[in-house]
């Protein structure tokens, strides 16, 4: 399923249209109502989401936990404007994402969302600094690339190409790239999935720091329950449903985590 399906419902008001959401509440960044997603793979129907209701607030660090196939990536993709639900509604602040055009979704990602990928997805032909600059050049009020890299502890390796960096370093460049535009949301899909636990902790520390200093709503997907301890809230998914939402009374610092 690709984002073209988002275009198909082009008659719906675009995200940029200021439509007052009925139940707008202070601090709320995302709200989703009755989200379902059905993929059709040949003869087969895969029901990835089966009715999700969710609200995410500014400044939160939320972990989406669940086994593979539980629907957590699909949910993240829909929140990030990469995919459209089969039914239900998603609001970002007072923009309705469902039914927005491809151009509007691109603008939404460009202005408000930072992505961190499992395999970093850095541009191999650009240095660390330039990978960040690629994004800041198209953003409205970004920080300087050096600033972003310093925040993730890479102030010294600005002019190295991805091939000259370790996996953990590459992922931190990716985080710097994601936060440099000062996004409202940081979406991370298994950011430590390709790393050993020691390096993974360093990456999580970077995310934690960003979340605390910039107050960016951070949504982190993992199937690793050990990571959940650093979240404000842990949302567990299974088989397309939210099984439970748990607020951590006491959060662990990323440095204390291990798995």
């Amino acid at each position: 399923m690709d984002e073209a399906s988002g275009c198909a419902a082009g008659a719906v008001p675009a995200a940029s249209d200021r439509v007052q959401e009925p139940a707008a509440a202070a601090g709320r960044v995302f709200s989703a109502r009755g989200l379902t997603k059905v993929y059709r793979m040949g003869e087969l129907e895969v029901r990835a989401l089966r009715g999700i209701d969710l609200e995410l607030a500014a400044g939160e660090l939320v972990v989406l936990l669940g086994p593979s196939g539980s629907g957590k990536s699909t949910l993240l993709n829909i929140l990030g404007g990469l995919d459209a639900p089969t039914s239900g509604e998603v609001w970002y602040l007072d923009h309705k994402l469902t039914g927005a055009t491809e151009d509007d979704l691109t603008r939404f990602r460009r202005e408000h969302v930072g992505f961190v990928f499992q395999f970093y997805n850095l541009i191999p032909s650009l240095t660390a600094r330039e990978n960040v600059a690629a994004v800041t050049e198209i953003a409205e009020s970004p920080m300087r690339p050096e600033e972003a890299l310093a925040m993730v502890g890479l102030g010294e390796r600005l002019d190295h190409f991805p091939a000259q960096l370790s996996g953990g370093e590459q992922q931190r460049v990716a985080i710097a790239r994601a936060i440099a535009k000062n996004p409202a949301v940081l979406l991370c899909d298994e950011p430590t999935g390709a790393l050993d636990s020691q390096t993974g902790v360093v990456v999580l520390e970077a995310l934690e720091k960003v979340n605390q200093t910039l107050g960016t709503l951070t949504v982190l997907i993992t199937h690793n329950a050990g990571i959940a301890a650093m979240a404000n809230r842990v949302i567990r998914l299974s088989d397309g449903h939210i099984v439970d939402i748990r607020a951590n009374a006491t959060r662990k610092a990323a440095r204390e985590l291990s798995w």
Partner: protein
Amino acid sequence: MRALDLKLFRDLWAMRGQVLAIAAVIMGGVATLVMSLSTYDSLVITRDRFYRDYRFADAFVNLKRAPESVAARLAAIPGVERVETRVRAGVKLEVAGFTDPITGLLFSLPDGTEPLLNTLHFKRGRWVQPDNADEVVVSDTFADAHRLNPGDQLTAIINGKRKPLTIVGVAVSPEYVYQIAPGSMFPDFKRYGVLWMGRNALGAAYGMQGAFNNATLSLTPGTPVQDVIDHIDALLGTYGGTGAYARKNQFSNRFISEELNQLQIMATIFPTIFLGVAAFLLNVVVGRLVALQREQIAILKAFGYSGTAIGWHYVKLVMLVVLLGVAGGVALGAWFGQGLSNVYMETTFRFPYLDYRLEARVMLIALAVSAVAALSGTLFAVHRAIRLPPAEGMRAETPMIYRATVFERIGLQRWLAQPSRMILRHIERRPVKSLLTVFGIACACGLMMVGNYQKGAIDFMVDVQFRQASREDLAVTFIEPTSSRALHELQALPGIRHVEGFRDVPAILRFQHYSYRSAVYGIQPAGELHRSLNAALKPIRVPPDGVVLTDHLAREILHVKPGDMLTVEILEGNRPVRQVPVLGITQQYLGVSAYMQQDSLNALLREGNVVSGAYLGLDPGTESAVYAELHERPRVLGMIANAAAVRSFYDTIGEFVLFYNMVATLLAGSIGFGVVYNSARLALSERGRELASLRVLGFTHGEIAYILLGELALLTLIAIPLGFLVGVGLCGILVLAFKNDLYRLPLIIEPSNYALGATVVVVSALVSGLLVWHRLGRLDLVAVLKTRE
């Protein structure tokens, strides 16, 4: 079907766009190869069959007049098989409703029997009857140009006497497959014709009863032709023989040989380019495929498939692409070949029939050459697949190492946004591939230019020949050399603005062991109408007491330079042999000649102020009146009108030019599209993940397209000037390869031709870009979040 073979077909299907683009390039190469070779074969087979069946002679000679009894002495020369004597008469012709001057060549036919040599193939009608003195057979080109048929009438002016003739047949002769009036530059079917009459009738009309002025001979196989020629010249010297010549120097046959030579050159140069480009494309595409299928290869090996089996798998894949290209190329080439053969038949060569042959040999050559090119191009990639150790294959490939480009190292990076840096670094990361891509695109531009080169070159030749050198409106030849008083007579005619006499005489030019049979032209030293040009194409004054030679004749044929003494063997009168200094070189694209001042030539011949003809400048609008006036003068043998000759020439070559333009556009387009589309698809395959990541980060469709297509646009832009160089180079090769004494092509490329070359490149790039733009819209953004490349 075995599983691996199924994989083969599915792989091919998955990359069908690229497969088709490469097959199209192979197709282009095979098509030119098949077109050239099959047309070559067809012309050779047709020519040989026609020459054999219609007994084309081995040696030819013209003379002033010899009694028929001399024929027996010719026949007695050792090695001579058959001799046929003929009467050959230059005539003026009149066809009702056509006012331009027509010259003709009238040959005798033996009365009551078929000719022993150079017999005729009848398209319509029959032989002449010996007792009907007014019957004539005409050449089919002339008949077709005037829509003449058996039963129609025409008038010949033979020896100044008007003779009404009835056409009884329309025929083709092996001597005149290529027909051109003596002294003319181009074939002109309307204004020049070859005709045949009964020997008695023509003898009576031309004053040649019991005598002949032309003989043709066939030789027994294995006889050295030069020995026989020497014998003939010794024998006919006293009869005004103008030098015998062998079949290989016979004009029509020479022209066919040169044309065949061109076809062979085409069969080499163009397929080489196409197949070279195809090899490069296969190299990158198969190289990429092997890289993408690393894991599959590793798994197959882990299951126990041998390296050879894997290698063979990819060889089969390449061979399927080759087969596709060859099959298409043979079909297209056969179509082109038939087209080209037909164009030849309609415009240039009058064979009675054309056997179009596409021999199995040609197809096998095409297959073999393509297979060798393709396999050599993919050897490296296939070898890599064979050598890949399974364990290594299962690991991800190490990421590409990039560095700052030269451009940036010298401090220009602050002008470049990140996407532009990506473009430059990607180009610099794979310099050889980028260079070959540029070269491949440049080839498209160059090929287009070659295809359109002829037209511009011919325009230029015509301009030089008719507006700089031979500026006369009309060239008149007299029945025999005449006192220059005749010029005053011409000058007095109304409508004639300017008269320049000339004296020409057939001669053999010798220097050391080099010799050439030609004519020496005595012209006016500072003529206004007929001029010699220097290398810069500026008119020069022909100096007295020496000879000026066409550069090709001097350099390539006789190997003389100014200051050398040339031996001139005059083939007229008592055939004096004189030493003449070479005083200069002149530039000329059509034919080769030796020029002297008319006075000097007269002195050389120990004769008074004698001319063989005159160049005339006419007042505009008086052409028809002057033609009519001159036509009536018995001493005027032939007239060549330049403007008409040029017009008819353009009519003739129009079809050729059109045909070549079509072929060139198709081929250049296929190579341009093949290279650009493949580069684009390859780049997309290599960088799709990178671009999709950027899309996720908020780059627009247009912004990522800039990164991918910007690189192609840059390469295309670099390729265009390089393409101009390739075009000029290829045209230069043609110029060198097609150089002969009949014509030399000038290396002149018109601005419009550059524009066409660039247009083909830009259009193929745009089409490829559009297709890739479309694909960029379908990048899978969700997949890149999760997958490793």
